[in-house]
């Protein structure tokens, strides 16, 4: 009998070990304070601000192993940087962030296409809904934070362009082309970016119908998008989360909140999985390297947006505690992974490393963009916890 007992216990112990290592490794959440998060935001914004070039472009990417600054550029990400710098200014009142954001905005304002009935940002060779959506979102955040109404006419013009890019079913064309207009193609995130920009327009210009336009696209994301665009599973769309979080309260119908609930689940499993990644030993084999900072950041910022929604709408209040746990954990992870001045000191170009997040030796502007937003969303959660609320 002892042999049988030993056999059963051995199978139990080995099975438990396999489950522990391969299925549920420890979810490590480094402790973090709001002060540390604020410092991390400042350091990452510093990386972006140092990257402003005379043309209004930003440093795109840096490979520290090869000591090469990437010559690539992506205009949608340019708009994303303008937007996040305004978010940083709105949250921290950093004049450097405002200046850096304005530099990128001025570049974009020099590339406008005035179509008569609408205006679009048209950098050479592209007129995208995603780029215009993020640029408009940034301008709306800037307007709310500064009270500056200088660009109201352009904002309304870009808003009309985004409505032009909406199809009757609420889907959004990815690109506008001279001669054909909105092309019959969708891109992964431009739908959510467009919806969010229209929601923010509604906040800045209430009563002009922007919210109603946004809802057409939100409902497309709620119901048809993933099937219509040929995706096997639901897209964990952080821009959709922003759109839902900032949507006027009277437009928050139950199906839209159910969608928010599903999004919270997608972001949560992504962030829980991320917290299991150590990037070494056996864990490297079963979980691979810690994820791209942009990937972690998008899930973190999506969760942050849903935190605001869960706090604001009692129909989602049951999610608030879990959402807050994920946000705080993500903040701890990303503060821990950020390159400190001491760590960057030995690099070939310390200022291209300090404050950034790298994935296997490479960092890109959107790594900082999404992670900054995630950390900004974590600040009020941490502050509330520190205050015992």
């Amino acid at each position, binding site marked *: *009998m002892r042999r*049988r*007992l030993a056999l*059963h216990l051995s199978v*139990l112990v080995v*099975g*438990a070990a396999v*489950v*522990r290592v391969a*299925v*549920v490794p*420890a*979810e*490590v*959440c480094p402790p973090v304070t709001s002060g540390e998060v604020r410092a991390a935001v400042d350091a990452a914004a510093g990386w972006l601000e140092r990257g402003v070039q005379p043309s209004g472009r930003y440093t795109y990417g840096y490979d520290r192993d090869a000591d090469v600054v990437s010559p690539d550029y992506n205009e949608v990400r340019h708009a994303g940087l303008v937007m996040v710098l305004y978010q940083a200014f709105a949250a921290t009142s950093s004049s450097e962030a405002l200046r850096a954001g304005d530099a990128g905005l001025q570049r974009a304002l020099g590339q406008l296409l005035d179509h008569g009935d609408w205006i679009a940002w048209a950098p050479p060779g592209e007129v995208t809904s995603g780029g215009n959506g993020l640029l408009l979102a940034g301008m709306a955040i800037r307007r709310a934070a500064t009270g500056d109404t200088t660009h109201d006419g352009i904002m309304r013009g870009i808003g009309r362009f985004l409505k032009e890019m909406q199809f009757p079913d609420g889907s959004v064309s990815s690109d506008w082309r001279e001669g054909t207009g909105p092309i019959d193609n969708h891109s992964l995130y431009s739908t959510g970016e467009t919806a969010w920009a229209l929601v923010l327009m509604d906040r800045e210009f209430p009563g002009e119908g922007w919210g109603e336009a946004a809802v057409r696209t939100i409902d497309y994301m709620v119901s048809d998008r993933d099937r219509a665009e040929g995706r096997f599973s639901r897209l964990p769309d952080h821009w959709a989360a922003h759109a839902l979080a900032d949507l006027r309260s009277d437009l928050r119908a139950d199906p839209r909140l159910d969608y928010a*609930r*599903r999004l*919270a*689940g*997608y972001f*949560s*499993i992504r962030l*829980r999985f991320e917290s*299991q990644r150590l990037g070494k030993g056996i864990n490297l084999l079963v979980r691979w390297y810690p994820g791209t900072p942009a990937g972690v950041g998008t899930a973190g910022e999506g969760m942050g947006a849903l935190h605001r929604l869960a706090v604001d709408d009692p129909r989602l209040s049951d*999610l608030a505690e*879990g*959402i807050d*746990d*994920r946000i705080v954990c993500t903040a701890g992870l990303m503060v821990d992974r950020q390159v400190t001045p001491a760590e960057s000191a030995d690099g070939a170009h310390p200022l291209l490393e300090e404050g950034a997040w790298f994935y296997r030796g490479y960092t890109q502007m959107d790594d900082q963009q999404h992670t900054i937003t995630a950390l900004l969303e974590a600040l009020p959660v941490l502050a509330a916890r520190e205050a015992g609320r």
Partner: protein
Amino acid sequence: MSSALLVVAFLAAANPFRSRGSIPEEASGRARLVPVLVGGALLIGSVAALAWWSGPMLRALQITPETFKIAAGFVAVLAGGYAFVVPTPSTEPELAGWRAGVWPVWYPRLFAPEVMALAVTAGTGNGVAASAGAAAVAVGGLLALVPVRGQVARRLVVWLGRILSAALVVVGIWLTIDGIRDV
């Protein structure tokens, strides 16, 4: 997990039909009542204990209850699949007298890894009383099978055990999906 699903999950995990095939029997072919009572009581107690300690245990292991639910689902799928393929567990040597309720009725027959995993995940989600109650339903099922003997009845029990094994696979898939969707 709803109360109904919790009961189905514990029934499928403890699988009284499958367990009936390998517990101590009298010469007549009936199962011995005292070991079943002892094993059943131990099962209810150990499920309650695991459910009680599930929170501190998962915190010590640095696993969120939502993520552990995925692990419980994984274990349930594997155990259900194995039980479906091997519908009658191998016969174990028995301790004498009522102690046979400890070995092999309680362990390894009833308090199997899938029941342990389920007790932990149900403890965090449904609480101690609900978990122990669901385990008690499974024990009740085993008690109801004590008189079963004869070839036809035994074959029926084996096939019902297979059905519960398949149900355990379904429960495991549900737990995994729910763990993925949980916040």
